[in-house]
């Protein structure tokens, strides 16, 4: 237990590692797919499945989170992921460009 006055460690309120990927894969395999993720935050979920996908384009409105996501992806050595800062509603990547469109806690 943290002593009084010290910073309290706050556990993540997201599901444990791998749970969301497992649930998504009940409906569609991520392996080899082109994925558009909308509302990716700091890439928490993106980085869990990106190594399986052919290509991932991930969008997040908050620029600081995009910077974090890019750094984490770099640290993981991922080269098939592109993070974009901005509104998903303003982005155009071409009709039919993706096999999966994923909203992760972002609708």
């Amino acid at each position, binding site marked *: 237990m943290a002593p009084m006055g010290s910073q309290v460690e706050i556990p993540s309120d997201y599901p444990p590692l791998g749970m969301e990927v497992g649930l998504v894969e009940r409906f569609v395999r991520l392996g080899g797919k082109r994925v558009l993720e909308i509302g990716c935050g700091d890439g928490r979920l993106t980085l869990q499945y990106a190594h399986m996908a052919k290509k991932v384009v991930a969008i997040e409105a908050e620029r600081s989170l995009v910077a974090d996501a890019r750094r984490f992806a770099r640290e993981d050595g991922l080269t098939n992921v592109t993070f974009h800062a901005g509104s998903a509603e303003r982005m155009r990547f071409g009709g039919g*460009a993706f096999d999966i469109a994923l909203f992760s806690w972002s609708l």
Partner: protein
Amino acid sequence: MVHALELARWHLARGGTLVLIQPLRSKRPFIAVKTGRRRQEVGFLVNPVFEPIITAAEAAIDSIVDRKVVVPAGKTEKSFAVELTSLRQLDAYLYGGVRPPRFAPGGRRRLEELWRARTQGARIEVTEFMTVMAFRPA
């Protein structure tokens, strides 16, 4: 929200899949005090601020289904538990977000009573609920 969903659909290839990971409306986070196998229930949290957002998301989903932009391809629900070691950590966990929940009447008092009477190794358990929905282009 509708526009974002329609745009996501537009980006999908033939045979593609739209996947939504969402909090589950019918089950809000549940609090319990857990010691080993013993689990003493406190109750569900409420979040009036969050409800309209879930309602809007559901309306957006209904809209694209009703207009046959997509067709449902499956839905699953899942829960997961987060264990916390103190009331202070619970408060930081619950109230750190932009739309914090609150206890139903009497819930906080019951939690504090149970926590005061806890034995060694006790944890505060927060059970969260989620749903994953899949859709295919119509």
